[in-house]
């Protein structure tokens, strides 16, 4: 088959492929722009302004980031305080329970001694009787 007969289908494939690729790139560009805008709204610091320069914008963006960092530190500190408080309550409870256990053991020993004494008395009475 001579090359000149293949030119038309090859051209069709080439152009079709090229146009489809370009169309896909345009759609992807549009969706990425929307996604980037949504992401930027959630960004703590305005990275764009830092990139684009301008000392004021950069300082403002860093200030925002600093504020966020401070808030996070405060939040973490309060969480740590709560954890400490919970830990202290647990320690106190353990001490209380240990004390109660000690008292119970003492009482148990006393009762045991009393029971031994009563047992001895019973045995003596039986021997006399």
């Amino acid at each position: 088959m001579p090359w000149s007969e293949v030119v038309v289908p090859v051209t069709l494939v080439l152009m079709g492929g090229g146009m489809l690729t370009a169309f896909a790139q345009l759609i992807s560009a549009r969706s990425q722009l929307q996604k980037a805008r949504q992401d930027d709204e959630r960004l703590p610091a305005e990275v764009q302004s830092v990139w684009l320069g301008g000392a004021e914008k950069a300082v403002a963006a860093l200030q925002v980031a600093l504020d966020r960092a401070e808030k996070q530190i405060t939040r973490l500190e309060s969480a740590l305080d709560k954890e400490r408080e919970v830990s202290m309550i647990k320690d106190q409870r353990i001490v209380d329970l240990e004390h109660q256990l000690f008292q119970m053991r003492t009482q148990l020993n006393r009762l045991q001694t009393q029971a031994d004494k009563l047992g001895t008395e019973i045995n003596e009475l039986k021997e006399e009787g």
Partner: protein
Amino acid sequence: MPDTFEMLIAALCLISGIPIALGFPTVNSVTSLLPVWLIRCWGADLALAGLLILIGLIAGRAAKTVNRRMFMIQIEQAGLTMLGTGSAVLMMSIMTIGGWRAALPVGTYLALTLSCYFRTIEISDVKRGIERSRRRDAVE
């Protein structure tokens, strides 16, 4: 300043693509090989490619945000893909008609096609790099 060479090529494509798309006479090699409707499509492809590249270059330069600039670079990328295709079609036609005697124009259009595709790949790399740095920033 945007790449003046790329801008010149884009303007040339736009200016020459519109009359071809409208059915005015064009390059002999293409006319003798392709049907009229396909020649018009080729012209439209060239014109659209030129337009997209020009928009991408000029508006990208004027863009005030990184997102907008990235969007315009991608517009330019789409235009370059179309220009690469159009240039490849012309190269193929000249090669078919002229054979080895047409080595110089074939080489020129081959270089144009390849440079379009290499620039497209370069833009994809830049996009990936920016996305990676964004993801890293988001994690940190």
